[in-house]
């Protein structure tokens, strides 16, 4: 799993929430959109990285924002089958609509209180890892 978020506190929270699911997970995290693309395209220091099966992506990121990452991933023939879940505090219908237009697999608003945050991440994990079938990622 790849977490893309510039807030380390939220990265930790998401780790915490995922640890409450029954799955054994390998979780990477990057703090901005440029690093996210480098990892996904396996360039530079990420050339030996495992391709993630699922990406949880925040929208407001430094260097390259989440909207750009989403757009690039979903227009790349190699990357676009990877499920990308937008996880953002923004409730703006503009952001939600645009994300789906660009091909986001779903959009989840980061809840304000702890219980709901944990619950949301667990829902995401339980659905994508326990219920849905993920596409096979080739190790090239």
């Amino acid at each position, binding site marked *: 799993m790849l977490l893309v978020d510039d807030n380390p506190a939220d990265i930790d*929270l998401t780790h915490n929430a995922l640890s409450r699911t029954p799955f054994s997970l390998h979780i990477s995290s990057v703090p901005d959109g440029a690093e996210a693309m480098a990892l996904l395209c396996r360039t530079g220091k990420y050339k030996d990285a495992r391709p993630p099966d699922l990406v949880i992506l925040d929208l407001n990121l430094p260097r390259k924002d989440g909207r750009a990452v989403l757009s690039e991933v979903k227009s790349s023939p190699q990357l676009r089958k990877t499920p990308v879940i937008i996880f953002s*505090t923004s409730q703006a219908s503009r952001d939600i609509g645009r994300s789906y237009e660009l091909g986001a697999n779903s959009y989840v608003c980061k809840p*304000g*209180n*702890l*219980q709901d*945050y944990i619950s949301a991440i667990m829902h995401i994990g339980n659905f994508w890892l326990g219920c849905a079938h993920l596409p096979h990622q080739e190790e090239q």
Partner: protein
Amino acid sequence: MKSGNAGPQNGSKPAPATRPRLRALLVEDNSADAELVVRELKRGGFDVSSETAQTPEQFRAKLRPNRPDVVLADYNLGQWRGMDALEILRQEHLEDIPLILVSGALGDVTAVECIKRGATDYVLKDSLARLPVSIRRALHEREVSEERKLVQSELAKKAEELARSNRDLEQFAYVASHDLQEPLRMVAAYTQLLAEKYRGKLDEEAEKYIHYAVDGATRMQTLIQDLLAFSRAGRDGMPTAPASSGEIVERALQNLEGALRDSHAIVNYGGLPTIIANAGQMQQVFQNLIGNAIKFRGPETPVIDVAADRVGGEWQFSVADNGIGIAPEHAANIFVVFQRLHTREEYPGNGIGLAICKKILERHGGRIWVESQAGQGTIFKFTLPAAAAEPQADAAIPQPLAAAAAG
């Protein structure tokens, strides 16, 4: 006849210490007539400096650099007319200079026409003694009108400043509340995680500290959300449209489903009119008022009546309940932001609902007040201006909504 005479002609009264200065521009092709006019002005107590123009070009030229205080124009000067001078004044943006026609017999119809077209007055050449009086009145009227224009423009400027200041404040409140939420989310989440992680492993004192911290953080989150709601309520420039208040009440009741079920409350509403309002904001109003009626209930099953009456040019809505009531001395306070009459243990809430209602209604041009006694239920009333061509209220039959009747 002497000219440039300094004193009055009659009696031994001493000359006034200062004579008002008057710069007069005469439109006259007869120099004898012009002299007569000037003499009359001096007799009337003015310190006159005068110029004469016989053609439109001369007239235009003499308007500057020294603006005349008054234009005295003959009606007919052969090639052109005194009323043409009025047109020139308009072109030169000097239409506030009074133009008085000084002329031979004009006839009432013509005279009235000239005044309608903008001449300030007209004086007959064989009644010149009226001229000073006419000039004084014209100058006075201009002063008054200029003062009024000044006041109006100051008022308009103040109103614009106020509107801008309001917009700035609302923008600030919105941005502040929005940006405050993020760091607060961190504090709230991690104090809760601390509580969870060390539950049972810390002494009582530490557990209490964590509890207070968590409580404070979560309360602050609700406060900021409320502030955000308040700053969004009734914002400048919200769109309004005709809306069925009955449907708005229904949507509010849908949002109150849980509370209605838990309290077994009965809400009666019917015959509610079409209003011109912002439906979303009015839904908030009804939701707050009906929600309060349910929350502050007494020992009996809550019964809430929503009704509307046409009073003059307004619709007067009422939300009446049989709850715990409000003592009259608190009636004004309850609409103030964050003012509460009860502790948080007695009844939940931040004290912002009624402040939001008041803001929304005032933005709609209405007002809200309460009629109540402690222990005798409460009636909240508010007004909304009615539209000009008022459509009739829908169904006159009351529609009781018994939330738990089905059981």
